[in-house]
């Protein structure tokens, strides 16, 4: 059993609970034990970094230190959390003076200093390796029955590659590998790694909805039955705000959007009630019908 400090991120814990619930059901099936981080904060989602960069760094290193105390690496299910935690980790690992300054602050408030020994990985990265794929195969997946899936990476699991580094940000293939391994068909399209617009969806809604339009319309035109994303923020932009994007852009997408663990869960036969598709704004009935769930 591979143990991880589980960092689901705020969106999966609150507004997108279906992602958290599915991940928790899926993990033991894949030999993963998720250990909670009860004192971990929000990663700041780029907003704290944009307001107070040093505070962002210190808060994220505090989370890494908690995982270090538990003796395990961090597993995430959100692009934005992954990028923020990895960026902070890189900043302190590359510069001992920065680590020292951050640790001084942590010690002052009674928090544990960080030694810089832990890594942060995303569930997609863990599974899209030979080892991960063999764990999926060991489950004898009933498969996706040829479901045509549009992979949607979003931004912050790919870029900046100097921080992320799992795969070529211009030619990512991890989602495609998983989709195929699960018996699905890939609907390829250019905008799979363009921005969903979510970071500015409240402050600049029109701009954000024009951004999500690009991937939604292209995935529709590629004949996808659904889209899959490794990020709950992208999911909110593509699913919760999809009707608004349709209205603004004068078109219809009718594109169901699945969280990555839900797609895997469908292939592995997890009960649909556990995966809470009813919480999606865009109905997923056609997806469940094709897969036979």
């Amino acid at each position, binding site marked *: 059993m591979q143990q991880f400090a589980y960092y689901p991120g*705020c*969106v999966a*814990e*609150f*507004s*997108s*609970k279906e992602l958290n619930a599915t991940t928790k059901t899926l993990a033991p099936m894949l030999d993963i034990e998720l250990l909670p981080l*009860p*004192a*971990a*904060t*929000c990663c700041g989602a*780029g*907003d*704290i970094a*944009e*307001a*107070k*960069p*040093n*505070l962002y760094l*210190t*808060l994220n290193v*505090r989370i890494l230190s908690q995982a270090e105390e538990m003796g395990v690496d961090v597993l995430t299910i959100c692009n934005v959390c992954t990028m923020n935690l990895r960026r902070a980790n890189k900043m302190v690992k590359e510069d001992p003076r920065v680590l020292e300054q951050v640790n001084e*602050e*942590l010690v*002052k*408030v*009674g*928090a544990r200093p960080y030694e810089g020994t832990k890594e942060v990985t995303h569930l997609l990265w863990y599974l899209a390796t030979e080892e991960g794929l063999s764990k999926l195969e060991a489950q004898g997946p009933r498969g996706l029955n040829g479901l045509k899936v549009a992979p949607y990476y979003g*931004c*912050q699991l*790919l*870029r*900046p*590659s*100097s921080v992320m580094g799992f795969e070529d*940000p*211009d030619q990512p293939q991890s989602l495609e590998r998983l989709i195929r391994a699960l018996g699905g068909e890939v609907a390829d399209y*250019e905008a799979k790694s*363009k*921005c969903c*617009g979510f*970071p*500015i969806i*409240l*402050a*600049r809604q*029109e*701009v*954000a909805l*024009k*951004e999500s339009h*690009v991937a939604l319309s292209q995935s529709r035109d590629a004949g996808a039955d659904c889209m899959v994303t490794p990020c709950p923020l992208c999911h909110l932009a593509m699913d*919760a705000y999809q009707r*608004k994007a349709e209205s603004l852009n004068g078109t219809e997408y009718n594109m169901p959007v699945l969280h990555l663990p839900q797609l895997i869960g469908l292939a592995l036969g997890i009960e649909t009630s556990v995966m809470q598709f*009813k*919480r*999606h*704004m865009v109905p997923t009935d056609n997806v469940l019908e094709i897969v036979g769930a």
Partner: protein
Amino acid sequence: MPSTRFDIFRYQPDVSDEYYRQEFSLEHTEDATLLDAILDLQNTQDPSLAVRYSCRSAICGSCACKTNGKTVLACTSQLESLKSEFGDDRLAVDPIGNFTPIKDLVVDMEPFWTKFKSVKPYLIPDGPPPEKERIVPKEAMQKIERESACILCAACYSECNSLAADPEFVGPAAFAWGYRFAGDERDGQRKERAKLYSGDHGVWDCTRCMYCNERCPKGVEPRDAIEKLGGIAFQEKVTRDKGARHAKAFLISMRTGGKLNESLLVPYTDPLGAPLDISFAAQMMAKGKAPSPIPHRIKKLKEVQGLIKNVKETI
């Protein structure tokens, strides 16, 4: 001698208003760059093929273009490396994105320069000039070292996702220059710059797609500069923009519970617009996506509150 096939975007407005593509094939040396190849094609196959270039040394920033969809400096991109990167013997070559082509690979840079000038990309010190030069400590210059390396090639601008959706967005290169001066300790316009950069189409329009950091050939990392300009806006208390309020809601959430309080985020970001969007809120609520207004409280919250109080910013 290796050879490469090219599929090049063509636009010859003197001949036709239509864009078209043209195939070329070229033998070249092992170490030839994309710019070498374009100039060779111009010299040996089609003298009308237009490209903008000057120094051939990644200094002038003139020759940025797209190859297989990725913006690069033509003068520093070797053909054999590109082919190996894309796993393809054929390279598509296009003008940079988010611009209007004038002729073939040459684009109209005017909107870029207008936005560049709009950020006042020069030092504006307070008071009369000193008798002798201003001595700046090394550490102070190191803060703006990365931004000072910008060559205005527009590789960042070419793939900016915010710009693609909002052509009026000032954009990453201009803001890198904005921070280069806002972060310069000799400059006296920190607050004025914070106001100037925080308006419509300003720093809070950045969607954090990270393409600018990924594409910059000089390591400027414009997104980081935009982030620092946000930090300066906070230091100078220029936080009325909805984008700044969005960030403020995160800070309040952090202080009061440690996790994001999503129920605070919408009304705090847009207090005037949010109440008008009742039907969307009702739909979210019906799907269980409206979180509890009672904030979650993490363990050891006092540590976090202490950090919020103690940690000093050094932007």
